[in-house]
């Protein structure tokens, strides 16, 4: 029986879950519904100015990257629970790998503003 390194992924899952619970709904309301439907107008200039601030970049990194690890952990166990328990290692690689890729992409976008 092996001492598990699961706690690492579980901690990321938990922190990501907290971030998602607190922040995601309001962001969907603003950027997924209010702006496209024209309920509010957020000018490009204003957003670009916001994006330029280092603290905003850190905030956006936390907002996007951590819930991706939350998704990876949850989705991996979801697939296991649907009968793919035997494939747990490849599933873990796929899920956490995707989250890492998403994190790298987020870093790249934020650095190149």
């Amino acid at each position, binding site marked *: 029986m092996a001492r*598990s390194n699961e*706690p690492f992924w579980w901690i990321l899952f938990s922190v990501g879950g907290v971030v998602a619970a607190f922040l995601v709904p309001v962001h969907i309301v603003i950027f997924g519904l209010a702006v496209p439907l024209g309920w509010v107008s957020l000018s490009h200039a204003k957003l670009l100015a916001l994006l330029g601030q280092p603290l905003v970049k850190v905030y956006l990194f936390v907002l996007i990257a951590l819930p991706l690890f939350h998704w990876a952990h949850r989705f991996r166990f979801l697939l296991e629970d649907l009968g793919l*328990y035997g494939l747990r290692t490849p599933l873990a690689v796929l899920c956490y790998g995707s989250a890492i890729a998403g994190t790298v992409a987020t870093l790249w976008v934020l650095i190149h503003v």
Partner: protein
Amino acid sequence: MSEETITLEVTRYRPGHDTEPRTESFSVPYRKDWVVLDALNHIKDRVDGSLTYRWSCRMGVCGSCGMMVNGVPKLTCSAFLRDYHPGSIRVEPLANFPVIRDLVVDLDDFMEKLRRVKPWLIRETEKPVSEGEYRQTPAQLEAFKQFSMCINCMLCYAACPVYGLAPAFVGPAAIALAHRYNMDSRDEGYRFREPVLNDSVGVWDCTFVGECSVVCPKHVDPAAAIQRSKVAGAKDWAMSMLMPWGGKK
């Protein structure tokens, strides 16, 4: 005057004769104060003496009579016929366990896991009787009392899909009992239980479905015990990463 009856659809399985379980239908008297166990006893006494099942105290404290009643893990001594009447009642062996015969399941796996978590007080040094009792405040008792109510009925294992999908999982009751001793102020044995809990088939297999706590007849809330053990395990893991040279725990 004809007596009211209710139908029980009971699983039958004869090892060596049957390759698969089958269902047999019995009509038993419907009495308002009867439980499913009473109906099973009636069948065994009056209709078919070969029906095989476990029971003992018939009052919800021994944990022997756990079975699936209409697909839900229940103690048959606590499942009243009147809650199912006039519909029929399906009685099946406890889910996720191998079936030995009829409604009797093999408990060896759970027994082994129970021993594995060392569900007893472990101390570095025993206090001699002459020095008196171990004293606990009401708050110290509260910390573990709920988890000590487990009667090992295994309804939680029947409700847990993870145990069904991956039988190596240590499981709700075993982890809840480990937690009960970890939280007991008299206990000094956390480091013996910790490797079992933090193993990959320990707490980390649990996805917090929560059905274990829903079906528990003694309100132990094993799901809470498991999640709290995850928090403790994560803290231990983080400390061991930050201080790999190891401090004495």
